[in-house]
Structures are given as C-alpha cells and as structure tokens.
C-alpha cells in the first residue's frame, strides 16, 4: 500500500501539485488520470523519487520515503518496477539481456537461475521467441511487454506505469492493460498507472484518482464514474460522442 499525505510540488514558484492525499491499495490497479499538463507525471515521479516534493509524506507500507537515507531509498527501489511511456529499454542489449539486467545487478542467484527467471518473465508476457532480438527490431507493443517483463523480474511489491498505452493501437492497448491487471492480482502488487486512455479507465480502473490543475478533484472506482456528478470529471471522461453514448447505454442498463 502506498499512502500520500498532503503532497505539494512546485517549479520556480509555479504550483504543480497541491495537497494530494490518497491511498493506493495493493492487489488493485490504481489509475491516475487527468488532462495533459495536469500534474500526473510529476505526481508519479514524486512517488518514485525522481522528483522531491516540498511538502508532504509518501508512505510505502508505513515507511516514509522522503525521510529515508540514501541506502534505505536504494533498498526500497529494488522493490519497485516501472514501465515508462517510451518503454525505456536499453537499446544496446537484447530483449533477454534487458530482462536479465535487474537480476544480474541485484540477484544473488546462479546464472542458470537468473536465466530461468528471465525466460519465465518473457514467457509470462508471451515474448519467449523474441529473446535474442534488440529493442529496435521489435514493435512498440512488444517493447512495452518487454518493459513489463523487466519490471517484474525481481518480483517487485510496487509497480508504476507511466502511460503504458501511449502510441499503441486499441487492440494492443487492451493486451497491455490485461497483462498489467493480471500481474497485479497474481503478485498482489500495488500498481499505479498514469493514463489518459479511457479504455484503460473503464476497463481496469479498480481505483481512479482524477487530477485537475494539480489538485485532487475526484476519487472513486470505474463503476462510480458513470454516476459521478463532478462536471470536470464528466467533461474529461465523456469528451467524445462515443463515450457519451457508452455512458447513456450504461445508465439505461442500470435503470432498466
């Protein structure tokens, strides 16, 4: 479980995050949604420690990340996995070497065990046959799956995904969403996903936090989105005619 208490962040006097307090539970896919520039990425970077908030507390199962010393932070980071928007695979390494990397770096297992674990992770994301390829030789969707395999190699307790569906077609997006969701349940991880993909929101949003201009505007589940009266949330989620129709159909079904 990750708990945020009054997290604030600003850049050169401009407030980007204002008093964010929430709880991300484990075993659930926790989504952070909001318009571009609303502060989602800054919030995620603050949670993982790539940025330091000016104020507030970030608690990883009760352990305050911001009060930790360097050694403790490094130890905690080994419990984290992250999938970046660009996949961020090491392009000088093959797919297998990418997945092996965290194991080579931190695991005390033998080479055979590390290789076995890496192959298991690649099989888990259905990429067993692409092991010897380089990131530049595989598609964007496959790169994201390799990133997932690399992120789960050390069996992390916390998984962070920064817009995992960006640049992917709807079908591949669904595969990625489903994969993240099933892995979260399987390993009972605390998963936080930054997204503005409405399919993800309505598909795997166990818990959704809506950020508006750096403030926490709304929080609930994917079911509650349909009944929410928050105007900003409705304007954001049901911006397209298609989604408006989806909402109407959902409401009709519920009333019926």
């Amino acid at each position, binding site marked *: 479980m990750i708990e945020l208490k009054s997290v604030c962040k600003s850049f050169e006097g401009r407030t980007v995050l204002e008093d964010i307090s929430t709880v991300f539970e484990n075993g659930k896919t926790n989504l952070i949604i909001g318009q571009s520039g609303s502060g989602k990425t800054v919030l995620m970077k603050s949670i993982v420690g790539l940025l330091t908030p000016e104020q507030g507390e970030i608690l990883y199962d009760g352990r305050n990340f911001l009060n930790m010393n360097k050694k403790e932070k490094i130890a905690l980071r080994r419990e984290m996995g992250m999938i970046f928007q660009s996949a961020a695979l090491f392009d000088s390494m093959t797919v297998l070497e990418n997945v092996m990397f965290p194991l080579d770096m*931190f695991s005390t297992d033998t080479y055979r065990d590390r290789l076995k674990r890496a192959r298991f992770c690649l099989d888990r994301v259905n990429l067993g046959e692409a092991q010897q390829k380089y990131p530049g030789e595989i598609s964007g969707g496959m790169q994201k799956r390799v990133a997932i395999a690399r992120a789960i190699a050390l069996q992390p307790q916390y998984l962070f995904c920064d817009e995992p569906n960006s640049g992917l077609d709807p079908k591949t997006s669904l595969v990625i969403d489903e994969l993240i969701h099933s892995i979260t349940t399987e390993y009972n991880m605390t998963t936080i996903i930054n997204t503005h993909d409405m399919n993800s929101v309505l598909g795997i949003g166990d818990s959704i936090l809506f950020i508006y201009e750096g403030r926490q505007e709304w929080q609930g589940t994917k079911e509650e989105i349909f009944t929410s009266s928050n105007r900003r949330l409705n304007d954001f989620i049901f911006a397209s005619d298609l989604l408006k129709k989806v909402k109407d159909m959902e409401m009709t079904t519920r009333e019926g």
Partner: protein
Amino acid sequence: MFKALQQLGSYMILMGRTFGRPERWRMFFKQYAKELEQLGVNSIGIVLLISFFIGAVICIQIKLNIQSAWMPRFTTGFVTREIMLLEFSSSIMCLILAGKVGSNIASELGTMRVTQQIDALEIMGVNSANFLIMPKIAALVSFIPVLVSISIFAGILGAYATAWFGGIINAEDLTYGLQYSFTEWFVWCGIIKSFFFAFIIASVSSFFGYTVEGGSIAVGKASTDAVVCSSILILFSDLFLTQLLTK
C-alpha cells in the same frame, strides 16, 4: 561566469557520484570490456590513418621547407620524431579523439537520458553515473597509452614511406635522425599527458551527455558542447603539463 561556475559544481557532484565502488564488479567489467572495444579498439583505425599521413607530411614539409645545405642531413628525421613524440601523438591525437570519442559518449548518454533509460536505471536502484560513466573513463584512460604508441609508430612509418616510396629523403639519414639524441622521457611525457587528456575527454563528454534536458536538439547541442569544451580543456592542460613535464 555564474553559469560556468554552476556547471563546474554540477560536474564535481557528478564525478563524486561516478567514483564509488561498483554495485557488481561482474557488471562493471562487462561494461568496461564493452567500452574498451567501443572507445578504444574502434579508434585504432582513425589513429593509424591520421598518424601515418601526418608523419609523412611532417617529413616532407621539414625536408622541403626547413632543411638546407647548412643543416645536418638528419634534421628531418630528428624534427619529425620530436614533433610526433612531444605533441602530435599525445595532444593533437587526443584533440582528434575528443571529436570522435567525445561526441560518441555525449550523444549516447544524451539519448539514454531523453529516452528515460537513465531514469529506468535510477528507479531500479542503480547508481547510473557509476554504472555508465566510470567504465567509460576507466576504458579510455587505460587504453590511451596503446593509442599513443600506435600513433607514434604509424607516424614514423609514414615518414619512412616518404623515403621508400617518395624518394624525398634517404632512409639512412631518416633512421639516423630518428635515433639522434633520443630521450626516452619524451615518450613518457606523451603518455602521461594522454592520461589527463583521456580523463578530460571521457568525463567532460559524459557530463554533457548525462545532464541533457530536452529532446534531439539538446542531444546534438550536448554533443557539440562536449567536443568544444574537451578540446579547450585539452589545450589549456597541454600548456601546463608541457611546462611541468619538460622543465
């Protein structure tokens, strides 16, 4: 001035993070071997080519423009050797390497920064500066004596080529000149200077690449800045080191 001081401070902080005990020695040596090939072995070709032709050209220029009937016949060989040993194979060769290796390092690290590969390392709990920069510095510093030696050898071979194939100078006179009043210390001067230059090239280029902010334009600018800054620092340090070592 303030910006320069700020950059110097950032450079020192980065070097502080770079020099530490590697997380896993096995991974360090793997990276070291990779960098040795990329930065060192892959530079042998250009070093050979440039040194050979410059050695030949120096020999021709000295023979045609400096040597006269009033000078001993070994002057050409003697001057060619002194130029190669004292300046070309260490300083000028490192200036050339600053262009090749420096831009390579800065653009590689810059691209890793903008594609979030460095962030990925940090999230994993890896000291990215130590993991990425230290093997580059270690590889270039440890391989530079080899490149300097190859450069000296190729330069002298180039001078001989003018004698064998061009007939510009007598090979015996050239050999006599090359051996005349030889001071072994001058070879060491070149190698000692090159250690400093290699450190400058690897560390300064890594700094510019590692601290890139933005996109492809920023990576290109970092690559140019790395080459310019390394070259200027090499020239300044050459002045001090030459005074220090040849006193």
